[in-house]
């Protein structure tokens, strides 16, 4: 498997946990998060934590800030604190897993990720992360288990162009391919491209599959054409050219 450059921005749930906390405080926290200013974020988070010291969002936001600031121990400290109050929150486990990965503690990271995935709803990032690790290490069988359960649940979200759902669909399709279920893989790819119409990685996978199958050349050209239009990545474009030539040869 070659280098994987995947760009998925983290989208955290903004559910209001405590009824007594004014929504404005969360709005304020959300705004300060973008500033990347520790002072502003800490101030905004502390206002929420002053009302509810276990506020999930405030703690998680703080943890993410410190994670991004590469202060992994601080992030770990906050996440562990948050997990005491919210032991079943998949987001926290997922983030703690990331912290462990950063601290070169793969074993604990994977363990937390698995726990996160178990508690995660279908679209949760933990599922995506865990499945992506499995798929990346070609453990398709292991990836298939949860993904086959999740996929029916996230299918409906593909229509909303959910990026996480798109990613999960992609990984599911790859896992299906890895286990030889090409038909189902094709079906999943098709459904995924509805949501990930602009996702060049997904389009590339689907295009590769179509070219390899050679059944639906029109669809394959369509995907190649879309990739050429959307991508500026020379490496990708070179691969797309190669695919196109293969497809041409199949004429």
């Amino acid at each position, binding site marked *: 498997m070659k280098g994987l450059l995947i760009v998925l921005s983290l989208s955290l749930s903004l559910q209001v946990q405590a009824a007594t906390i004014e929504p404005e405080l969360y709005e304020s926290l959300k705004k300060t998060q973008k500033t990347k200013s520790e002072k502003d974020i800490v101030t905004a988070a502390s206002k929420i934590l002053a009302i509810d010291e276990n506020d999930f969002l405030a703690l998680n936001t703080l943890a993410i800030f410190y994670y991004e600031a590469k*202060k992994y121990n601080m992030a770990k400290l906050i996440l562990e604190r948050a997990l005491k109050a919210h032991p079943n929150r998949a987001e926290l486990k997922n983030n703690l897993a990331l912290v462990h990965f*950063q601290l070169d503690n793969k074993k604990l990271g994977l363990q937390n990720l698995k726990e996160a995935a178990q508690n995660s709803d279908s679209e949760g990032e933990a599922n995506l*992360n865990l499945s992506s690790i499995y798929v*990346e290490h070609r453990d398709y069988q292991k990836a298939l288990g949860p993904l086959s359960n999740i996929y029916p649940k996230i299918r409906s979200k593909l229509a909303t162009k959910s990026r996480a759902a798109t990613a999960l669909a992609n*990984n599911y399709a790859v896992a299906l391919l890895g286990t030889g279920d090409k038909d189902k893989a094709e079906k999943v790819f098709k459904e995924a491209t509805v949501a990930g119409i602009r996702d060049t990685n997904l389009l590339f996978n689907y295009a590769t599959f179509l070219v390899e199958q050679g059944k639906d050349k029109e669809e394959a050209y369509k995907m190649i054409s879309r990739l050429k239009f959307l991508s500026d990545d020379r490496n990708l474009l070179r*691969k797309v050219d190669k695919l196109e030539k293969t497809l041409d040869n199949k004429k």
Partner: protein
Amino acid sequence: MEGKFNMKISLLIIAALFLTMNVDARKRSKTRTVGDILKKIEATKIKKKKNLLPESKKYKKPKGKVNLRRVKPPASNRFYYSEGTSERELEKITDKQIDHLYGMTQKFGKSSRRGELWIRLAELYVDKAKLIELRLQDDYDKKLKLYSEKKLKRRPKLNLKEATRYNKKSIQLYEWFVRDFPKDPKLDQALFFLGYNYFELGKTQSGKKKYTELVKRFPRSPYVDESNFALGEYYFEREKWKDARVHYNKISKNKRSRLYSFSLYKRAWCKYKTGEVKSGLRDLEKVIYEGRKAKGRSGDGKVSRIRLASEAAKDIVVFFPEVYKAKNARGYFNKVLGENSTKKMLDKLAFFYVEKGDRSSAKYIFKNLIKDDPFSVRAYEYQHEIVKMYQAAGNQKIFKKELFEWIENYGAGSLWRRENKSKTKLIADSDTLIESTLRNYILQLHQTAQNSRAKFSQQQAQDGYKMYFRYIKDGKNLDQMNFFNGELLYDMQDYVGAAKSYNRVVANGNKSGKYYKQAILNSVLALEKKLPNVKEIKALVGDSKEPVEFPQNLKSFTSSANRYLKEFPKEENSVAIKYRVSSLHYSFNQHDKALPQLMDIVNNHPKDKHAEYSANLVLDIYNQKKDYAGLAKVSDKLLAVSGLSSTVRKKIRGVKGQAGFKLAEQAATGKDPLKAANSFMDFIKKNPKSDLLAVSKFNAAVNFKKAGRMSDAIKLYSEVMNFPAKTAKDKEVKKQARRSLAFLYEQTGQYANAAGAFEGFAKKYPKDQDSKNYRYNAAVIYDALDFYTSSIRNYELFQKKSRGSERNDVNYAIANIWDRRKRFPSKALVYYDRFMKGPSTNNAAKIKSAYRVAKIHESLKRRSRSEEWYKKVIYRQRKLGAGASYAAESMIKLVERNEFKNFKKYRISTNPAKMAGSVKTKLALLNKLKEKLKKVVAYDDAYQIVAALTLQGEALDSMAKSIYAVPIPKQLKGDQIKQYKAGIENIAGPYKKEAIETLQAAVNKAYELQVYDENVKRALTSLDKIQGNSGMMNEMRVLKSLWLSKAGM
């Protein structure tokens, strides 16, 4: 270390929970609470007025025996007139006679019988002079008495000028007579009166000359006696007893002389004065005898003789004790004066003995007289005299005996009294006298007791009072005696007895009496002495908050006190007493009774010191009930009272403030912390200058925290922290605020601030038992925040206060920091080294430290050092047991660098002759490698198992490739080449197959053990390469989150 941090945090959370408890004012030993300010009952001292004992009649102590030589007989001129004669009348008659005769002398101035008229007029002038002198002398004596009694300022002077005027006139007439009638038979008379008048005028030489001429020229003249008597009197007056006696002797020889008795009488006194008392007594006896004789006849000198006899009888009393003993008196008087006069004389003698100070003789005579007539009035008086005598003498023993006898024999219930019952006045007088004597005696005893304060004296006085009350059941002085009995008992500290005695005065009901008011007050004061003290009250009341009934002594006291307050509500002591009563009600939780009285004191006597005390108690009653709303309200009421001192008002304001604080505290005990917090905030708003501001803010902060209002709590804690501490409590809350703030910062995600606050606390309060742990907390948070310097500083300060493994474990934490910083690997090495050499129970950390040291050396390209340390990891792990994964990884590292590298480096010879040998050698290296990897697998670490299998797969692949890579000998052709290749395949093929199997095993094991790392990827890649896999699946892209991607997964 992670675990350790968690432990510390837990401990600190417990500490924080403790801190969230309100600061309970009651538990603050050094802070004064409302109760502390108020609960002290101010002792009020009602000063008992010292009442002077009434002046008792004091009996002068006789100065001793009467100096007989000083006793003087009465003036002789007194004896010229019979007793009862009116000198005034005589003077008037004399004046008329003078007027008449004077007219005659004027009328018959030339007559030959003018001498007769001159003589008669001269005689009248002498009489007149005598009468005037007598009058002037009387007048002088009276004035002298007044002067001695200090009723006159100037000492009187005896001026006889008015009398001597007549003496001069008389002299003139006699001189004319002697000049004009030298042969007249009355010449002796003229010479006598000339001598007399000159003496009267003080011209003694002229007088003596005339007397001498008379005696020489007319030795048989009756005026010779007169002259001798006059000369005797002259010397007698000048106390020249012997000279006087010479002249009296001359007269006493002539029994028929008019002056016979007189001369005897005067001679008796001269003898008395010269110590011849017995002889003098005989002269007096003669005078009495002559007097008795004179009664039976008429004639010249009868009056004066009788009177002289009477005087002599009186004087005998003076002479008698010098000659005879008292027991002889009755017989002597019977003999000399007759039986009828004996009693009278004994009476006089007895009193003379008293005067003289001869008590035993006096007592003897008095007792004798009493025996004569025991039921007489005088008998009672004689006994009284005995009592007085001994009282004055201070002979208590006899005095008491005689006094007792007097009271017993003449007081109520005595026979004497029964006998004299018809004499109501006498009885009344006797009662009065007995009472006054007894009272005087007791008061004197009391005075002595007061002066000496000796118990014996007090007991004597008390016995006296008891006796008094036994005999005296009523009378006007009963109040006085009861009152002073009370005073005595009070001094004797018999307060209950004193109160009873005072109460008898009160019960007597004489409200206008001198002692009524004081008795009521003193009864209160006496009973007040028996009141229980604070400790005793505490024992009676205990911890009860319910009203407790007064014990009997308190009931008596309050009853007395209320009686006083009712009768004398505006008296000086009434406020103090009212306060005392109300403070007792207060102490016994009888607040309903105490409050109105206390408020009354404050309202009506605001300037009195008891107003302050009362205000204190009023406030404390509410405080005790924890009725802080009521406390605040009553504070306002008290503040509305005008006249209270500024100090008191300040105090009340302080209490009001505290009441507000207490209200807030009370609210804090409820289930609504927000309400409690707001209550404290309200207090702060209303009392911006209160001493409790810091505490209130602190408590508000605590409650805001409880209510989930952390921002408010943080704000207030910060204010408290910066509050200028006025009191010890302020300092305490400042400390707690700083502590709480650290936790609140941590709680609200302000970790940098939390670390700063923990560090600040530890710096500010280095001796606090938590400071060490706060240093650690600060260090851990700084560590997490990558504030390396701050973290290390706090770790090191924590380390300084730590011992043993705790101290050493800090080295590991600091080593980790330096390790993470990368830039100062030597520092990391130093601290890892310290840690490994020091004591620690964390063996895994020790193995990891060794592993990190190996890695640091590796990063510094110190290969041998790093290998040395990898080996140490393996060695130490074997020894300590923990840290297998580090040992496994270390071993893999060593295998890769040595066995694997050596294996790969070894090339199979292309020389056919050497080829078999070199294959054999490489195979041996491969086996050696395998053996080593087996040891890695033995550590049972999933990641290193996969790593080992992957490495082994790669080695096998390398083995196969090395064999395949052996060039085909150039000399081989055609089938030979085929055969050769088949031979190669036979050798290399199994290695290739085994490589695939091993790599696949690595992948399978990875999937099985959930190992997803570079080794798996390496294994997969190797497999792809060996198997020539290419195509679709290799091109497939995995979609994953950016975070995961950034995490290196």
